[in-house]
């Protein structure tokens, strides 16, 4: 059994979000981190590896510096890494990206017992579309928003997190699961892992390697193959400073009611 975990390097939005004059995000000015939900997916895969000794492969699409992120994931305990990187793939939207990642998974090969894990969504785009689209393109059964995963013979049971509860869903393998960060807290790298991470295999998948896959076509990849185009990027106007109501809860509630009445809201 092997688990392919799809990961993305994203700008760290916990600090200041740098925006260029044209309104696009200034990625170069921001630190790069591994997407939180993806790290939960990696940790879930590593936990299964701890229990079953399966193989964990991390797969990412991005520019060359994403290798640094993949090395860190190898230091956490992943066995192998693939980086999809080519000029032809640049500018891809979620449709084109999932097309390319699906082709890469075809290249790596997905056996009967295998699984693909993705993070629910990336903090830079927040679309939550790539995982489900990969599943569709590979004809895999899928469960999204997994907050729990239990591996059984030939199947897995997932706890699908909803706003007002959860669903327990069983599906056969191979399959795809998108994971929420509540699924698992990522482990730290270990020094022994760091010492080994540069000797573990990392393969760059370029256009030449993937071009013969039926999913890869000039009309389905890169900017040209992307049906969605960014019309406009802008920073939302900052909200006015709120009013803090002091005093005991009772006093604060009275003050709040008075304010709302004054504005004829109640």
């Amino acid at each position: 059994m092997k688990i392919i975990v799809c990961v993305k390097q994203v700008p760290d939005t916990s600090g200041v979000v740098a925006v260029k004059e044209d309104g696009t995000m200034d990625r170069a000015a921001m630190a790069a981190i591994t997407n939180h939900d993806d790290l939960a997916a990696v940790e879930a895969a590593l936990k299964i590896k701890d229990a079953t000794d399966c193989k964990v492969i991390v797969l990412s699409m991005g520019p060359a510096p994403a290798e640094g992120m993949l090395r860190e994931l190898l230091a956490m305990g992943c066995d192998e890494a693939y980086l999809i990187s080519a000029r032809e793939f640049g500018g891809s939207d979620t449709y084109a990206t999932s097309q390319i990642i699906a082709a890469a998974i075809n290249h790596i090969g997905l056996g009967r017992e295998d699984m693909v894990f993705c993070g629910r969504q990336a903090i830079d785009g927040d679309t939550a579309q790539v995982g489900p689209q990969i599943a569709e393109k590979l004809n895999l059964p899928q469960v999204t928003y997994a907050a729990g995963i239990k591996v059984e013979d030939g199947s897995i049971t997932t706890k699908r997190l909803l706003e007002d509860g959860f669903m327990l869903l069983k599906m056969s393998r191979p399959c795809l699961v998108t994971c929420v960060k509540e699924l698992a807290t990522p482990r730290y790298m270990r020094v022994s892992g760091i010492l080994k991470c540069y000797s573990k295999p990392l393969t760059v998948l370029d256009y030449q390697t993937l071009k013969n896959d039926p999913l890869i076509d000039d009309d389905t990849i890169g900017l040209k193959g992307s049906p969605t185009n960014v019309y406009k990027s802008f920073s939302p106007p900052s909200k006015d400073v709120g009013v803090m109501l002091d005093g005991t809860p009772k006093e604060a509630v009275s003050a709040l009611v008075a304010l709302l009445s004054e504005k004829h809201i109640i």
Partner: protein
Amino acid sequence: MYELTREQEILVKMVREFSEKEIAPNAQELDITGEFPADITKKMAELDLLGLNVPVEYGGAPMNEVSKVLAIIEVARTCSSTAEMFAVQLLVNGIIAAYGTEEQKQKYLGMTCREGKLGAFGLTEPGAGSDAGGLQTTAVEDGDSYILNGSKCFISNLGPGEGDYAIVFAVTDRAKKTHSGMTAFLVDRSTPGFILGKLEDKMGIRGAAVSELILKDCRVHKTQILGKVGKGFNIAMSGLDSGRVAIAAQACGEGQAALDAAIAYSKQRVQFGKPIAAKQGIQWYLAEMATKLEAAKLLTLKAADLRDRKEPAGMNASMAKFFAAEAANEIAAKAVQIHGGYGYMKDYAVERIYRDARILTIYEGTSEVQKIVIAKELLK
């Protein structure tokens, strides 16, 4: 000048993340209660940090001296007490790895790397501080054992919950001079006659266990001799350079923490309508602090690098320890000054860092001793 390797860059990231998430939240509490959280050493062992200078066959994940410095700096940025424990353990590890028998290495390095057990370093005595030759603790041969008697003070990594074993230095032949009359022993805490004395109530690094150790007819089998009989002084001295570089690294981490806090506070604190960072007086303080810190780091990395290259590093280790320790004190004092009245209050980390830094110019060789070492090298 010192470009980090790819592995070292990841190590720094890992230790920083671990320290910020696991150590920093408890640093204040640790300072108040003095109770070192036992799970921290276990976690540090799990991540191989306690085995950073231990061969793989004994459970370690060895990296070089520069890496050790980088790791200590990151821990010290969040908590001086934890950094002190870490630095002492690496010193103990290094000595056992260099002089221990196969059985000793398997046992003691194994328990540190796999279980997070700590080892204490028992050299100092009430009458033997800078002058290690003034040792009074004796070890008298008795059949297949030695009987140890005496008392040690200021012993790091030894407290009610810390220290499962200790390297104890004792005089085995009073007639011989220090250089050949002293022997090192590995003594388990469970050995009858190994008595934990007073837990020291300290000004700073209050979370790091430092205690008195009393040895009363403590019978230690000859298999527990570390190195050879009469070679204790050499063993004690062999750890000096490494220990000094480690404390220099601790000083760099504490200096960094004080500088970071001072920068953040000066941007946030508004007086006379402007953040105080806009005042030239504060800017000059910050510039001086950052420059001293940079110099301290470079001296420390150079000393570590010389050790990695197996070149003589004694003078450089002393320069690093002397300069970094003094710099950390100056930086911490200025950080308190920049914080004004708030810097004097326990609500702000700089108050703790200021107290923690004070020991840096004293232990592992005072600044005065370091200057003697440096001058001796210059004048030989």
